[in-house]
């Protein structure tokens, strides 16, 4: 079930129209993952008023570019995004992939400018949360304040794990960790965790995992040969979830480990 099954028109945050109420954070299937996680009732309505549903973005359309002034955080409602930066030599580094319920733009809070660019991998929609208004409400709502910190912490945790993975893990383990993470993230938005339609290209995936593109393909084939997954075009089916967890190193480190972004 897609929590944001239809594209939303841009709505004025101050108007109290019916559609806004229907589309409010209270009814959004993603709210458990998103900022409103620990607030409710009246408070939620206050937050609701500042959240703007943006017009859907098309594939390859940029949500924000590196260097642009920071005004808002964005929550993915549907589709997927990649964030990336480009260095002085023009080399692209893919920093992350963002699925429904996940927040983008947190890295810009410190400098007031976006540190990276965010691009839609397919047709996608986001909720825009103007940061000044969020701060305002958060000052009065300790629950929201706390949730914001948790979200930021989760983000840091994710990035740290990625660094460790890139630094140490064997190639096959990296891919297993990645697929396991995607599977968990799908489960969180109540989708079938065993059918992953990869939104990103092989090139982006290779870049993110720090592997050559041909290595990525070889590893997918290898996991297929091991009976862990089957691959048809961009659809990956997890046939042996236990084995995938094991390959991702979950067993050794216990249930909490892995990429539980």
């Amino acid at each position: 079930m897609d929590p944001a099954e239809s594209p939303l028109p841009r709505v004025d945050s101050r108007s109290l129209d019916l559609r806004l109420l229907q589309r409010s954070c209270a009814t959004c299937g993603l709210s458990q993952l998103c900022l409103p996680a620990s607030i409710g009732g009246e408070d939620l309505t206050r937050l609701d008023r500042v959240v703007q549903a943006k017009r859907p973005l098309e594939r390859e359309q940029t949500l924000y570019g590196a260097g642009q002034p920071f005004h808002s955080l964005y929550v993915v409602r549907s589709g997927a995004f990649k964030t990336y930066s480009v260095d002085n030599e023009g080399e692209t580094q893919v920093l992350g992939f963002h699925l429904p319920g996940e927040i983008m733009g947190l890295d810009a809070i410190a400098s007031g400018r976006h540190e990276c660019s965010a691009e839609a991998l397919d047709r996608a929609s986001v909720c825009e949360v103007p940061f000044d208004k969020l701060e305002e409400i958060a000052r009065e709502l300790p629950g929201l304040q706390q949730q914001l910190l948790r979200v930021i912490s989760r983000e840091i945790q994710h990035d740290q794990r990625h660094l460790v993975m890139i630094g140490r893990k064997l190639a096959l383990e990296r891919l297993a960790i990645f697929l396991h993470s995607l599977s968990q993230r799908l489960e969180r938005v109540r989708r079938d965790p065993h059918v992953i339609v990869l939104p990103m290209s092989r090139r982006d995936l290779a870049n993110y995992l720090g592997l050559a593109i041909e290595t990525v393909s070889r590893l997918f084939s290898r996991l297929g040969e091991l009976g862990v997954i089957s691959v048809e075009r961009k659809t990956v089916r997890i046939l042996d979830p236990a084995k995938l967890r094991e390959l991702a190193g979950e067993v050794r480190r216990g249930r909490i480990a892995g990429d539980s972004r």
Partner: protein
Amino acid sequence: MAPSHPVEFDAALLARYDVTGPRYTSYPTAPFFREDFGEREYRARALATNEDPIPRPLSLYVHLPFCESPCFYCGCTRFITRDHGNAARYLDRLEREVTLQGALFDPDRSVVQLHLGGGTPNFLSLAELERLLRALRTTFRLDSGEARDFSIELDPRHVAPGDLAALAGLGFNRVSLGVQDFDEAVQQAINRIQPRAQTEDAVAAAREAGMRSVNLDLIYGLPRQRPDTFAKTLEGVLAIRPERIALYAYAHLPERFKAQRQIAAADLPEPAVKLELLGSAIRALTGAGYCYIGMDHFALPADPLARALEAGTLQRNFQGYTTHGQCDLVGFGASAIGHVDDCYAQNARDLADYYGALEAGRLPVVRGLVLDEDDRIRAEIIQSVMCRNALDYGAIEVRFGIRFEERFARELASLRPLADDGLIVTGERGFTVTPRGRLLLRVVAMAFDASAQHAGEAPAWAGRKPARPHFSRVI
């Protein structure tokens, strides 16, 4: 060992179903390609194929359209010339096309199938063929493993000693030789004098050079062909025992193919004789141990095609039946057709247009088609009929999330007369083609062709691979 896909020749049944129909080397078929599909659409689709976690391997087809003299039966995209300077000029453009196409596919994608067709590919000199292969090798990762399928069509009349060893050196491991008929009277009538020894020598050289497979092309229904003389031709072919044999029907359409006007209609065998030619050929070939693969193709039981038929992994694409169906197919040269992702793309057929686009730095794609969901379902059904001689409704439902009987009620109704005539046997949730029906595969496939209403009007089957006559008729 009895083949699990036997074939049965039933003259009366074949005569009844002698209708026009496509050969389904693609679905939708080439006449339905659209002019509003061009380079831009092709590029986007081709680039998208790199995005899969395991991109498909590549199959390359290169069309080499020149011939020194016209074979009168031929209805294909080819240019008759004795000026070999044409080859070098063509290669100049082909090299540009290879570079432009190469930029669209990630360099790690290996080429597991390569086919040079024509025209007459060996109109090009060895040095020119070497130049072509060098261009391909510089741009694409040509597989060097045993499983690769690198083939070239050869006119035995232009094969010199040493050619086949040189071709093997270039990486080719399969050859297809045009024969048509060994009988001299027939050869005169089709303007293709080719002594039997020439063919035998070329085959011997191919085997000497280590080619894994030899295919011989035959045609029945040619002028002055008689059952007794054709039987001798078949004897000669069976003595050579090529791994594969293609047996095409000659379709006389002089109003469409100019060269065919040189053939006197009075010389053509009567329909009943034509059927007899086919029947005796099928008996001779299967009697000698060949498996009937489907459509016009026969292969020895150990050949990969025969094994793929047995295993249910056979595929059909623009190169006919193949064991490499799961490739993105890239076409090069005038009139060539590619099939990448879910689209077909055809190059300009006219040399001036083909050259013009490449000189301007553009890919010469002039027509094509993006398959929609309905096309994809029907293509899958037709593949199943053509390659597995059966259809499992449940498999299509699982794959596409449809209710088969609801979606294809009209089609299933149109199958009923075919079942009554014994072409197919229907089961609870599927059907299989009977041995009698196997020679009428495309009649069965046509039931699922959304454009089959066109069946009666002989559309211009402008296939890209007309190195042989166009067949508008089933028989």
